[in-house]
């Protein structure tokens, strides 16, 4: 039986200790859940086990033998395979080719090097039989459902019969029902003797799936318990510590007038029939997991993707979001989740980025005014405390936190009434995070309505007046953030409806 033992593993990055003195012993034939909030060190652990990162200290023992992986290929040869939340399949190739990617069997003989398709097909059939799943072999995988694609991904990882399978949130993009077939496969693997390590955000999955639960907090192991003892409260305590208390930052009441009303907004399959209203000076948080439709909702509100049905009333004006330009004119703007690809033009200067959406109003008769642009940059630099050496240098030279401030600044320059913030604190340092919180507070005091999406639920408790719960594309309820405890919030988000 496979065993995987970690002894005092540490990993230090410049400025942070991602993993400290982590020890655990996992046995084959079982599913081991690994939990922890974002930044707790889960991914670092996965990267160490797959050979993508070397530990700063400590030993990994596979079946009692110490091993050092110099590369992911090393780890795979030793029998450790991994499956991630992002699929790595080639969408135009079929299941057979995806499963055999880079190792298609070739024929020998007079014309060596020809692909032996018969052997490849036989091999794929054997593999799927062994995993007790059935998939269409000759269909390009882009035509399969996301859940089926995830099965292909796991089958691909199991192709080399590894003893250890690491699953890093493989079901986060799947609905509860869809996730069931992945769970069934993982259970089959465990019965056949594989050692499965399963990382998840969805605590409710754990009790029915896993045998043990290990929690990580701030890079430190917080113990391993059998899943029969893992109540939601116990797991939250393991992830966040005994005493979870936050001083709420938001202190002013919202103004009585609504700035945004959303009525029956639908964009299938991402979300449907979303209705709520946002008042001036109010901060609403959307509490939902990745894949709940929260990002898609924000994009539709910002005009990035048109809705199938529904309308919004902004400032008393009824409109259907059709384009970002239209929504910017209405006073609704969005800082996107993906700053590099959607938020900024990395080739352009900070000045050009900061003034891009407001350039029309800064220009006279379509002729730009460098002086007025510089004034905007100077104002935002001061207001948002941007460390800016040269406004003419490409914006990509700035740090993540400062880039995020440039994104905020470019929207503030348009005098918005409603701001949609998608993961505003992702990938920025602690100081920039604190500044982001202060900025959100200041903007709400100025009467701007803010809608915030964040995977960091505790941030939402700090910042928001009200929370909307979102699951599987629907708003399932709302609550006053002031009276909510983090445990209750987490339990509520993680419960499956």
């Amino acid at each position: 039986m496979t065993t995987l033992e970690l002894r005092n593993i540490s990993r230090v990055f410049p400025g942070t200790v991602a993993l400290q003195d982590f020890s655990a012993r996992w046995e084959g034939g079982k599913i081991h859940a690994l939990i922890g909030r974002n930044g707790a060190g889960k991914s670092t652990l996965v990267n160490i086990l797959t050979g993508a990162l070397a530990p700063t200290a400590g030993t990994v023992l596979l079946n009692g033998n110490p091993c050092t992986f110099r590369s992911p290929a090393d780890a795979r040869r030793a029998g450790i395979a991994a499956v991630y939340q992002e699929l790595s399949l080639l969408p135009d190739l079929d299941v057979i080719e995806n499963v055999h990617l880079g190792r298609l069997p070739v024929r020998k003989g007079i014309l060596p090097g020809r692909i032996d398709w018969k052997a490849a097909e036989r091999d794929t059939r054997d593999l799927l039989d062994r995993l007790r799943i059935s998939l269409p072999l000759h269909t390009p995988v882009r035509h399969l459902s996301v859940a089926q694609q995830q099965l292909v991904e796991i089958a691909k990882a199991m192709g080399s019969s590894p003893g250890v399978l690491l699953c890093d949130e493989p079901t986060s993009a799947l609905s509860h029902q869809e996730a069931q077939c992945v769970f069934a496969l993982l259970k089959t693997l465990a019965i056949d003797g594989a050692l499965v390590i399963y990382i998840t955000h969805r605590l409710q999955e754990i009790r029915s799936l896993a045998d043990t639960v290990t929690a990580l907090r701030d890079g430190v192991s917080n113990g391993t318990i059998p899943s029969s003892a893992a109540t939601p409260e116990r797991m939250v305590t393991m992830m966040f510590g005994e005493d979870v208390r936050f001083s709420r930052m938001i202190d002013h009441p919202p103004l009585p007038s609504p700035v945004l009303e959303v009525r029956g907004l639908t964009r299938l399959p991402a979300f449907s029939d979303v209705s709520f209203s946002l008042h001036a000076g109010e901060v609403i948080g959307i509490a939902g997991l990745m894949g709940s439709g929260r990002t898609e909702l924000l994009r539709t509100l910002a005009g990035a993707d048109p809705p199938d049905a529904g309308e919004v009333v902004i400032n008393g004006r009824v409109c259907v979001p059709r384009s970002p330009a239209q929504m910017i004119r209405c006073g609704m703007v969005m800082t996107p989740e993906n700053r590099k690809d959607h938020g900024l033009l990395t080739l352009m200067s900070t000045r050009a980025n900061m003034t891009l959406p407001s350039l029309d109003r800064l220009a006279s008769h379509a002729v730009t005014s460098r002086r007025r642009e510089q004034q905007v940059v100077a104002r935002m630099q001061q207001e948002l405390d941007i460390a800016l050496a040269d406004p003419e240098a490409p914006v990509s030279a700035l740090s993540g936190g400062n880039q995020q401030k440039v994104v905020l600044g470019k929207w503030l320059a348009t005098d918005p009434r409603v701001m949609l913030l998608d993961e505003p604190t992702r990938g920025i340092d602690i100081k920039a995070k604190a500044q982001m919180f202060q900025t959100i507070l200041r903007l709400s005091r100025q009467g701007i309505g803010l809608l915030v999406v964040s995977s960091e639920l505790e941030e939402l408790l700090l910042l928001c007046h009200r929370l909307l719960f979102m699951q599987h594309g629907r708003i399932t309820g709302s609550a006053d953030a002031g009276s909510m405890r983090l445990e209750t919030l987490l339990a509520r988000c993680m419960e499956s409806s």
Partner: protein
Amino acid sequence: MSRRPHHFILELVLVALCIALAWIAPGFFSAENALNVLRNISMQGIIALGMTMVIVAGEIDLSVGSAVAFAGCWTAYLTGTFAGVLAWPPAVAVPVAITVAVITGFLLGSFTGFIRMRFRVPSFITTLALMTGLSGAAELITNGFPLTPFPEWYNMLGGGYLAGIPVPALMLLCVFLASSFLMNHTVFGRSVYAVGGNAEAARLSGVPVGRTKTAVLAITAALAAVAGVLQSSEIMSGTATTAKGWELDIIAAVIIGGTSLSGGSGSVRGTMVGVMFLGVIINGMTLLNVNEYWQHVVRGILILTAVLLNRAPATQGTFREAAA
């Protein structure tokens, strides 16, 4: 847009080249030769300035060479029809024909833009189709023989001088000033850089992506028609076989001028230098009696060298925050 030292390398090389040629090439350093160079580069230069906008916007136009031939033939055909069949006086027929030809060019460019935005067909494909199509259309119009309906004074446009300077060179100067202003000092110009740098980020910032891309394609096709008119005036005929392969010379000049083929960066000023650079090299080699085949080889080497020289300093690998 920000000027960094490496942006001036090409200018320095150009100056050095001129000094060297003044030493070794007989007749290079004279006002007459300078005007000669200017006239030789002006038609391709006019199109290259438009092509710069197209490439900065993340598109390409391969049809400009055929568009030059087509516009010349179309102008000749229309002039012949207006003056011959309708018996209009040439003073009316020629300006009307020119106007129609330039508008036709503008519409063809708009068509490429429309196909690009509506059906998501890359401009590479549409303009490749237009390149063949327009070339055939020019042959059809002329029936394979040059059309010569032009009055004597028509030669003034392509072959004449104003205050001692070739008229096409003056046109080039006007287009340079206009495109330079457009790209550096207008909302439109900023949009061109934005849609070429990252169309989705530009769209999310409220930039009209479709309109901007269509506009640069239309402007460039119209400039190609203008060059076609000048060309037909210089040779006093509408000839279907003229301007073959210009598109590649023009794209080469744009690239030598430091514009990135992947879009989002570049300048019309750079293209102007690139055009002059190519013009001077070819002029110098002709004066030095370098074999024409060698000239092609040298041009090829130049393109590669210029791109290597112009390459932006390698962007440093961004430090990835500890993935945890």
